[in-house]
């Protein structure tokens, strides 16, 4: 029922847009990719709100966000000329574009971002959802459709890898 929707699409866009953008940017290391991902996610949320069942809104929203990101990776796999986020040095790519140079200028923590991009996607996603977005393990488990124990393991292993990369 439409009446049971807690937020309108516009409200979701305003409230969660920045969170989704930060998630996308930290996951891809690239402003253009983050921009495209936010647009895609907001479109899916707008369509999905009609069938949204009251429950964990955060879990629902981040599942959509995650699926949009994975779909983009799959699309790029089918277009081998376009490199995957994991397959190139995204930081170098980011700094080659004038728009991204601006981001690089204002963005601190370059080494942290670089290390994040070195992580396998499952670990990176878990760490970003936990430490950048601020989700609980349970919310991350719902978003990624995995047990909480898997979330715990991915976050821990991701941080350990970052520790090695940063030392």
């Amino acid at each position, binding site marked *: 029922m*439409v*009446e049971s929707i807690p937020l*309108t*699409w*516009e409200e979701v*866009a*305003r409230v969660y*847009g*920045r969170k989704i*953008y*930060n998630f996308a*940017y*930290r996951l891809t290391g690239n*402003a253009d990719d983050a*921009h495209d991902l*936010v*647009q895609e996610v*907001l479109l899916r949320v*707008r*369509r999905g*709100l*009609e069938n949204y069942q009251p429950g964990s809104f955060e879990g629902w929203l981040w599942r959509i966000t995650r699926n949009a990101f994975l779909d983009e990776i799959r699309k790029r796999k089918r277009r081998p000329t376009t490199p995957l986020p994991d397959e190139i040095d995204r930081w170098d790519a980011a700094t080659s574009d004038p728009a991204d140079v601006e*981001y690089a200028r*204002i*963005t*601190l*923590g370059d080494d*942290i*971002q670089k290390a*994040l991009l070195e992580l396998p996607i499952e670990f990176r996603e878990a*760490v*970003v959802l*936990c*430490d*950048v977005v601020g989700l*609980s*393990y349970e919310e991350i488990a719902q978003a990624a459709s995995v047990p909480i124990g898997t979330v*715990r*393991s991915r*976050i*821990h292993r991701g*941080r*350990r890898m*970052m*520790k090695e990369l*940063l030392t």
Partner: protein
Amino acid sequence: MTHPSELISAYLDGELIGDETSKLLSHLATCGRCSADLEELQSVRTAVRSLPVLELPPGLVPEADAFVVPIHRNRGVWVGAAAAAVALIIAIASIVTPPPVSISVDDLTSRFGARASLDPAFSPAKVVVPVLGELSE
């Protein structure tokens, strides 16, 4: 000695359950390796959490009223008639152009009514629904 290292990150996040916390703390009291691990993982966690929050680029999120039907509003009885007409058009559009509209009739009616009562610059009843495709997208 078994090192419960996987508990350390969950401990930092306040995500341990049951007696895991007491078990880990007992272990940390006697294990220098895990204590050092805890400090290093805490540094990583703090570093990621201190990444600057990026602002959304302008234009990425539409204006709040971007999906309110832009109608030349009217007073009194015309308000209801206009809202009904819009609802009818949307209903037809939702049938012929899936996926359906993500705005409820109640939402439209309340927005329309609220805006109508606040806007003194009404013109006589003239309902214009500019782009159906935009609504039903």
